[in-house]
């Protein structure tokens, strides 16, 4: 009897002790599977979603609010003329294969990304670099052809992470980085596993293992979360299900911003959109809130220009384009289209475009514009709209952070050609002083808003559904990332 009691007590104590130890594994679902694991050789966001900050690190990095903070570079000096950046690296950084990360690796990574045969999807980030010099093993000097106020920002992108010559050959299937997690296994089509890097140079992760799963079907996503097959779903694809999760105490729902400015892209060189009055009429014909409610179930922040509303430099220009169909009709008449006109509305696959497109087409019909919808796959969209510029209107979310510079490229698919704006961007790039940059960015936002280059709709929201006990998840997505380095379970 005593023995039994003792056993029971021991059992109970073990149970309590076991219960108070926080869980150290996590299963995270995202919609798309990375096609391969090389963040420096393709544009697929899923690569960064899995690997950014977890496995790979750059000289600088984004934190959860989008601010640029030091990465493997602990600090840096910028020459007075703004063209030479001297980075001081952390000295104890090791790659996961046991080799050390030093200035040679930084030089290798940057030179590789800007080389002639580079397949880096964001090669433009490295365009201004003229030379990378190793000063000593912990110091590297980067020379630019002209001052570039966004250089440190550029180096924080997932495409600018530090890789090693020793492991570059197999990076697509066996990524070797310096991050707090090591790549462990990838069962293609099903899951990818990371394990904690116990030799990490910085603060060690609380989680020991992390499993990524890839579920793109909205119904399957709902089922996987409800059945508790996954602990976290970043970028939950079915906004209509969110209220149900919010009402369920097992889950928490985090809704944040992305860097995705969702716009009604307008072909500025194609008549009648080459006429400012017509573009202005379109802008007034659009009821943003109806689109956000109808297409996004209320998730999304209206924008009046091409800039992220959570950015401190954002200027609220919604007043330039309030919903006013009467005014839109008047503007169309003034432009010479009293009876409206017919144009194309070419939509890529995401639901914001397909659902939003239906709503916009009906709003445009109210003012006499007949937008003929055609649904395209991404590859077709890239070919027809982006490359051949064969479109009147389209709906796309531009997810690259701080991408207002695309308006300075007259060849870009919406074909906005404004010399003043182009000069402004040159000036912005050469300006490092924060106050000066803020003023220039405000001017840039105002110019494109008042030129009604595109219809500015809303900032794309991102929803994360997680079990109630998960802490430390990013709410916003300043870059595509599921940063697990500070994620933990509540006791």
């Amino acid at each position, binding site marked *: 009897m005593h023995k039994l009691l003792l056993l029971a007590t021991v059992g109970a104590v073990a149970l309590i002790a076991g219960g108070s130890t926080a869980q150290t594994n996590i299963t995270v679902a995202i919609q798309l*599977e990375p*096609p*391969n694991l*090389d963040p420096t050789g*393709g*544009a*697929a966001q899923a690569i960064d979603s899995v690997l950014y900050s977890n496995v790979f690190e750059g000289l600088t990095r984004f934190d959860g609010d989008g601010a640029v903070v030091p990465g493997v570079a602990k600090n840096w000096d910028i020459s007075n003329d703004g063209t030479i950046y001297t980075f001081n690296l952390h000295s104890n950084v090791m790659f996961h294969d046991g080799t050390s990360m030093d200035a040679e690796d930084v030089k290798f990574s940057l030179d590789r990304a800007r080389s*002639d*045969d*580079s*397949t*880096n*999807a*964001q*090669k*433009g980030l490295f365009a201004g670099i003229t030379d990378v010099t190793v000063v000593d093993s912990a110091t590297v000097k980067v020379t630019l052809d002209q001052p570039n106020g966004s250089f440190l920002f550029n180096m924080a992108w997932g495409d600018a992470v530090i890789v090693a010559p020793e492991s570059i050959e197999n990076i*697509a*299937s066996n990524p070797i980085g310096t991050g707090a997690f090591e790549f462990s296994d990838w*069962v*293609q*089509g*099903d*899951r990818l596993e990371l394990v904690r890097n116990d030799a990490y140079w910085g603060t060690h992760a609380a989680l020991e293992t992390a499993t990524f*799963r*890839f*579920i*793109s*079907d909205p*119904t*399957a996503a709902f*089922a*996987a979360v*409800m*059945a508790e*097959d996954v602990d976290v779903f970043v970028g939950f694809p079915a906004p209509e299900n969110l209220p149900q999760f919010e009402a369920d105490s097992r889950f928490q729902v985090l809704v944040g911003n992305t860097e995705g400015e969702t716009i009604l892209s307008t072909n500025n060189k194609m008549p009648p959109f080459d006429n400012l009055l017509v573009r202005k009429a379109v802008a007034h014909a659009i009821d943003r809130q109806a689109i956000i409610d109808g297409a996004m179930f209320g998730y999304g922040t209206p924008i009046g220009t091409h800039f992220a509303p959570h950015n401190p430099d954002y200027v609220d220009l919604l007043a330039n384009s309030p919903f006013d169909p009467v005014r839109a009709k008047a503007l169309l008449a003034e432009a010479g289209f009293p009876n409206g006109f017919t144009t194309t509305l070419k939509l890529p*696959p995401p639901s914001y475009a397909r659902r939003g497109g239906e709503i916009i087409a009906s709003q445009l019909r109210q003012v006499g514009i007949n937008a003929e919808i055609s649904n395209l*796959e*991404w*590859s*077709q969209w*890239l*070919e*027809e709209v*982006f*490359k051949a510029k064969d479109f009147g209107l389209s709906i796309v979310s531009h997810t*690259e952070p701080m991408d207002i510079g695309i308006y300075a490229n007259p060849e870009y*698919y919406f074909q906005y050609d404004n010399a003043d704006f182009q000069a402004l961007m040159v000036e912005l790039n050469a300006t490092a002083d924060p106050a000066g940059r803020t003023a220039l960015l405000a001017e840039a936002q105002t110019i494109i808003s008042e030129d009604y280059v595109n219809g500015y709709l809303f900032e794309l929201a991102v929803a994360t559904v997680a079990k109630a006990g998960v802490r430390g998840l990013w709410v916003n997505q300043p870059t595509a990332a599921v940063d697990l380095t500070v994620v933990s379970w509540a006791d």
Partner: protein
Amino acid sequence: MIRYTIARFFSLIISLIVASLVIFLVIEVIPGDPASFMLGINAREDTLAALRSEMGLDQPLTLRYFDWVIGMFQGDFGNSWTYKTPVSELIADRIWVSLPLAIYALILSTLIAFPAGIVAASRRGGASDVTIMGATQMGVAIPNFWFAMIMVLIFAINLRWFSAGGFPGWSNPLQGLKSLTLPAISLALPQAAILARIMRSSLLDMLLEDFIRTARAKGLTRSQALWRHAVRNALIPVLTIIGLQFSFLLAGGIIIEQIFFLPGLGRLIFQAISARDLIVVESVVMLLVFTVIMVNFAVDITYAIVDPRLRRKS
């Protein structure tokens, strides 16, 4: 029998050649540049050109076709552009989900359909016939993805007997089999409904044949005659349907694999098409066509075994 087999074999080879040409041409003329898909909207022209030459897209079409066909003969399907691994490895991984799933579903559907069809035929017009035929009517009408979603709702979300999807691998065969159970049932039910109806009508046809009357005249009961003589003869149309169904189950798992997020061939091809990973699409489709043709070949040969008249005729 030998001449019959040889004739079938030649038609198999010709089908394969025609199929490879059609697949290659159709897929190559689909609009969409794989390089620009992979590099996204910020890619520069020189980067795109570098990637295109890395993928061999700057080679002429005919050269690429022959490279592809010759490679396949050597078991080399080329390298996936997006996954950057050999296509043969991708297929080898995925086939261990899709093939067991198809076989599992086929076994389930046969296990359901045979008894149901035989019972319905032997009790024609009775209560069990009416019930079975009513059920199969529903089974034929309801699409398998709807079954799949309802089963997830009941067995994964409410009862928690199964996980909602995913595949843990074959390292633990029971776990692997368990994760394929809901998908296999949802694939099997509509197939079973079709098969049961074919089985029933084929049997009823047989029951009107002279040899059944002879068997009855010899003193066999109705069900003895049915089991000993009618069932075997009713198998020919049923076998044809099973052959077609197997091909359908292997290739047609695309939607079911999406719903249960299973890493099978269907999902691979789905992802490859949207990513314009043409080499993967071509190879997987070719493999599926090859399977369909081989299964049909096997069915043709089985006919000859079941029905001796076919052997002599050719």
